[in-house]
């Protein structure tokens, strides 16, 4: 038997560390998987649909918007009928699904296939397994998001006939990184579920449940909690301000809110604050653009928080995985 058939796994031709070998194999598995193709198609349709509606609306308003700063980036953030949400909002809503899809069976999948004991008895460290899988998941998610965003940008450029400036491309790239960070939170959480829950289906349900809680009830919970911690006193206007401030702060516990704020500031150069603004603060203010650095600075805490949440959740997955029994 010498014929060399098409294979999905051809080894490295030079030595790599264990996690890289695992990440490479996982990446190859993902890219041929049905879930990858399904998510790519789904997001592709969403992306083209939203950007088509947005571009049509922007074209109709062309005379009025001719001088709008960052018109190109509006493609991503403008909502226009008949599509109910903008691309950014859609992606913010669907990004957790990406993370969950490539993480929920990371470890328990190896367990249920019985490949884990074989894998960890190879000359690799045990954390190579979870690290490699996380890297592979994040890479595949990054690939999907980049492909879809480039697709959306391409459709927009063709329809609007405007070419993005270097600054706009840079904003888009940083926003892509923020999106991958946000997906990283969910990938880490799904990986955590795959470590502590033996069944892949239970792990997926657990991840999806948490996502729905944050996506649907996050703002409601923040509102209720703000009412408890900082109640509004009818006679005292300052208490209303404090209550609103508390609500904004509490809402930021949710990675979804952190990501939405980051998107807002990164894709709209005229957004000057993602927090609470009083009328006094914007009264008489001249609309002006922030530079890229200023926009990044504005949401730097959000970006760092997203990274920190990812790292913390990943640590919660990592530690029990290192101590778990290997046997099935």
């Amino acid at each position: 038997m010498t014929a060399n058939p098409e294979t999905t796994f051809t080894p490295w031709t030079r030595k790599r560390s264990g996690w890289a070998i695992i990440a490479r194999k996982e990446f190859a598995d993902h890219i041929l998987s049905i879930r990858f193709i399904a998510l790519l198609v789904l997001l592709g349709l969403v992306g083209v649909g939203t950007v088509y509606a947005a571009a049509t609306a922007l074209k109709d308003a062309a005379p009025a918007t001719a001088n709008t700063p960052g018109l190109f980036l509006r493609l991503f953030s403008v909502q226009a009928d008949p599509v109910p949400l903008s691309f950014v909002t859609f992606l913010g809503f669907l990004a957790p699904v990406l993370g969950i899809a490539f993480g929920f069976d990371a470890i328990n999948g190896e367990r249920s296939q019985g490949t884990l004991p074989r894998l960890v008895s190879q000359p690799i460290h045990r954390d190579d397994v979870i690290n490699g899988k996380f890297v592979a998941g994040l890479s595949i998610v990054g690939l999907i998001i980049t492909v879809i965003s480039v697709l959306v940008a391409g459709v927009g450029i063709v329809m609007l006939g405007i070419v993005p400036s270097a600054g706009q491309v840079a904003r888009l790239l940083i926003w892509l990184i923020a999106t991958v960070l946000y997906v990283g939170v969910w990938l880490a959480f799904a990986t955590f579920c795959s470590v502590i829950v033996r069944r892949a289906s239970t792990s997926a349900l657990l991840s999806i449940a948490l996502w729905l809680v944050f996506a649907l009830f996050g703002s409601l919970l923040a509102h209720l909690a703000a009412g408890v911690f900082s109640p509004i006193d009818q006679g005292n206007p300052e208490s209303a301000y404090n209550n609103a401030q508390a609500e904004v702060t509490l809402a930021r516990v949710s990675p979804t809110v952190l990501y939405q704020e980051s998107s807002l500031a990164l894709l709209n150069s005229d957004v000057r604050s993602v927090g609470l603004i009083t009328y006094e603060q914007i009264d008489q203010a001249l609309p002006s653009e922030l530079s890229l650095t200023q926009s990044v600075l504005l949401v730097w805490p959000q970006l760092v928080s997203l990274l920190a949440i990812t790292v913390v959740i990943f640590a919660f997955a990592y530690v029990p995985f290192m101590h778990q029994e290997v046997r099935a």
Partner: protein
Amino acid sequence: MSDESGVLIEATGLRKSYDNAVAVDGIDLAVSAGEVFGLLGPNGAGKTTTILMLLGLTEPSGGEVRVGGLDPMRHPLAVKRQVGYLPDAIGFYEGLTGRENLRYTAALNEVLPPEAGDRIDDLLELVGLTEEADQAVGTYSRGMRQRLGLADVLVKDPKIVILDEPTAAIDPEGVAQMQQLIGLLAHRDGRAVLLSSHLLPQVQEVCDRMAIFVKGRIVAEGTAQELGASLADGRARFRISLDASEEVLRTVANTQFGSDQVEIEAAGHGSWTVIVPSLSAQSLFAALVNANVEVREMRDLNSELDQIYRRYFRESAETLA
């Protein structure tokens, strides 16, 4: 070979206890190059726990392990580089072909192409899977998986091979193929092979030495002959089937040997286990014939390993209980 005596796996006083249970209770083992050593014991005796400790995948609660002269907890990679491990209930990536699964293992072991490709071809031929190498593992039978597992173990060309229940749940033909391959690993290639099983005939077939493992302890160790002899303790054990009642048997045996020397246990279906002083079977047989009892069957249990095995389990269960 890491050591002059050729001992590649060595455990002394190895213990593993969990919160409320002792899984492995101070065992000693030594397996040399070129030898197949069998750990024989019922499920739950602690065999897999012992194996995981030898591999450094579970931390021992006490005792020492040396695999290839190294402590697996301190030098995990060096140990795992020279030990091939076939877990029980081996799993493969179902969507990948047999060859792809082996390539992955090769990559993890830093066996690089083109060497990896040649070695994988050779191994697939050795285990007789050349034809099926490019089918998805999902289509493989259990016996094929087990043989692919053996190829997988050998991809890293290990000096030490540890097989956990290599012949469980596969058909008799598959068992014979596995046994032949396991023999080759030790006797032709000079590897040290440790295998665990709860099935005595299979251990007996392939192992040079064996240890009987019950409730976390090794209760006996040696070749099959040594084990049989050590249990005989100067008494003969027979299984007798009669067309007569236990009363008749007891009377005849007592007359022949004296009632304090005879033990009789019912074994069902008109048969009994008789333990008498070490005398030839003929004297009991002759006595029964003289008493006009029709003897349907009479077997010497001391020479049958499955009886030895069962007796060890019963005895240890009694002494440890």
